[in-house]
């Protein structure tokens, strides 16, 4: 009798194991997981995301094991050239013809907003690490759009608060003339005013401006205490360098880099950048895990990671974890799972993805070291203070996202 039972069991288990892969395969669309990295690969934001983001994603897939549930994980990447129409049409083609399941990076807020909007219609998850505009999780929030690393609300909470407290009451803005710049300026202005300061003027500069001299002079003649640079990447670097050339800071005004990346500091050099304070989500040597990972990244990429590149690694890893735990790459299921998870890795501790898509996590106020303080090529920053997640990010009670309120 036991023999038949055992045989029966064997057959049952065999039959079950035959069916299991079938249901698992059906749960992964197109029998694989495909991730797209859409970034500025050639222009103003190339160093802070770009090819480095592709490497970070590759590392995430490799460290994950290269496959999920026995199926392959594929990576595809493209250059959006900071043009929202190219970004949107590339994303559209990826979704329609290349079976992409998740799109990440997406620096440049105009591109980010257009791709997130498209992905919303097509029900694809986007995990935005590169763009800043709060519109992504506020006015234009999406049930499938996640904003992972930083936003234009968190940045001034750190930087502007510190500067107003230090006497910088009157602000003049030089703003990159597109979604991100406007969002950053508006959010920073709100923080400044809430602390009793005032915004005395603003000038818009096109994205990718080479010569900030006339804007800087306008800022100088405005009588402001602080010149707020509501821009990023190469624009910030150019503005700060030229401010130095025209002796703006020496003449008594302070510069506020509202969004500065490690690569910008490296590119400017400590002589010019020392003393600059800014807000960031990640410092490569923030803990042992991050230091180890960053050294590996540096070996492959040739530079230490910025917060958004580290963010890509973390986002892709957590996405794959969610897929593995739910056994599917179905958008609704995975997104729900991501919302439940508490994120703990080398990039973030105790991170939570809120219903409006915002990944709530602590931020840091950092200051650029003096040349004498720096012990190695990439030892560039001192952490001044931590800004807890509930201060840095807009709460669910206050969010304008229609999914929540």
């Amino acid at each position, binding site marked *: 009798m036991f023999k038949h039972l055992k045989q029966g069991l064997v057959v049952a288990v065999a039959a079950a194991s035959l069916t299991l892969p079938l249901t698992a395969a059906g749960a992964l669309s197109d029998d694989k997981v495909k991730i797209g990295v859409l970034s500025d690969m050639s222009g103003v934001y190339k160093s802070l995301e770009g090819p480095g983001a592709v490497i970070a994603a590759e590392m995430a897939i490799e460290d994950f094991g290269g496959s999920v549930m026995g199926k392959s994980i594929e990576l595809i990447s493209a250059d959006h050239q900071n043009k929202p129409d190219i970004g949107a049409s590339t994303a559209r083609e990826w979704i*329609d013809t290349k079976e992409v399941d998740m799109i990440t990076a997406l620096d440049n807020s105009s591109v980010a907003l257009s791709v997130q*909007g498209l992905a919303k219609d097509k029900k694809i998850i986007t995990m935005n690490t590169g763009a800043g505009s709060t519109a992504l999780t506020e006015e234009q929030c999406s049930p499938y759009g996640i904003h992972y690393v930083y936003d234009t609300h968190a940045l001034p909470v750190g930087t502007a608060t510190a500067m107003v407290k230090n006497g910088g009451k009157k602000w003049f803005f030089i703003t990159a003339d*597109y979604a991100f710049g406007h969002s950053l300026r508006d959010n920073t202005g709100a923080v400044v005013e809430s602390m009793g300061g005032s915004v005395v003027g603003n000038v818009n500069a096109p994205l990718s401006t080479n010569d900030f001299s006339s804007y800087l002079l306008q800022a100088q003649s405005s009588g402001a205490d602080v010149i707020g640079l509501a821009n990023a990447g190469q624009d910030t670097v150019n503005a700060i360098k030229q401010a130095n050339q025209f002796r703006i800071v020496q003449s008594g005004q302070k510069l506020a880099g509202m969004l500065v990346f490690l690569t910008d500091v490296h590119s400017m050099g400590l002589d010019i950048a020392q003393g600059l304070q800014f807000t960031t989500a990640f410092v490569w040597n923030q803990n042992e895990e991050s230091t180890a990972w960053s050294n590996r990244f540096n070996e492959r990429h040739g530079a230490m990671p910025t917060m958004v590149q580290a963010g890509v690694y973390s986002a892709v890893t957590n996405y794959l974890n969610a897929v593995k735990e739910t056994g599917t790459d179905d958008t609704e299921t995975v997104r729900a799972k991501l919302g439940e998870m508490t994120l703990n890795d080398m990039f973030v501790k105790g991170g939570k993805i809120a219903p409006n898509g915002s990944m709530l996590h602590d931020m840091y106020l950092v200051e650029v070291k003096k040349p004498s303080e720096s012990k190695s090529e990439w030892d560039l920053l001192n952490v001044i203070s931590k800004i807890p997640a509930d201060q840095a990010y807009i709460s669910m009670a206050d969010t304008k996202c229609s999914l929540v309120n």
Partner: protein
Amino acid sequence: MTNRILFILMLVAGLTAPFFAYPVFVMDLLCFALFACAFNLLLGYAGLLSFGHAAFFGGAAYITGYVTKEWGFSPLLGILAGTGFTLVLGSIFGFLAIRRQGIYFAMVTLALAQIIYFLALQMPFTGGENGLQGIPRGELFGFIDLNNSLAMYYFVFAIFLIGFGIIYRTIYSPFGVVLEAIRENESRALSLGYDVDRFKLLAFIISATVAGLAGATKAIVFQFAALTNAHWQTSGEVILMTLVGGLGTVFGPVVGAITVGALSHELSSFGSWVQVILGTIFVVCVMVFRRGIVGEIQRLATRKKD
């Protein structure tokens, strides 16, 4: 004879394309092909080089985008609105530019287009660098859902055929004959009693309007009106397409648009090498291949007859 064959080829290819290629991509090609045809009318047949046609292509997109998104126009009405806008704009530009000849004419069109670019960048409704996003596909005639790729495709193909037809009828008409005469020898045409300026102006307006039709349609296809469409570099792209395909031939621009468009798309992973390749094609065409693809085909066809 060649024309008839090419037309049938074009019709068959157009009707079957969505089953062989990504429909959105083919729609993009069709819009550019129409744009190139419009441009070719002016350069290839009237002999007027306009460096500012992007103003019509990009400008119409904004108007169409705005009226469909903010005022709820249906896609057809939206496209008509955009086209109507370029009709008016084309008339104004044409009136200002026609007074000058040759390179000065090109410069005026460029300057006027830059002013439109500036307006596109600054006016609040255009969204500046972000562009006008989220343009609805809408429903055609109230019941055909244009979010369906196939439906959208045939709608675009129909518009293309209509626009192409307008250009075709303009070329093969007494009006078109006079235009070519003006291109060959303006003073002689003048001495024969033709109001040369009026002919040139009319050609300009038709060209601008069809270019606007192309841009307006593109806005609905991609649900996006982008600033790059109004940039002078887009004017440059359409010149390349027309040249490669065949200046002064009816089907040249279509062939050129498909060639350049497909090339750019296939080589897009090569980054900036695409620009180098396109530039080289440009140079080669100007130096030794002036007739363009269709021009060479036509030449071979007439040679065979002898």
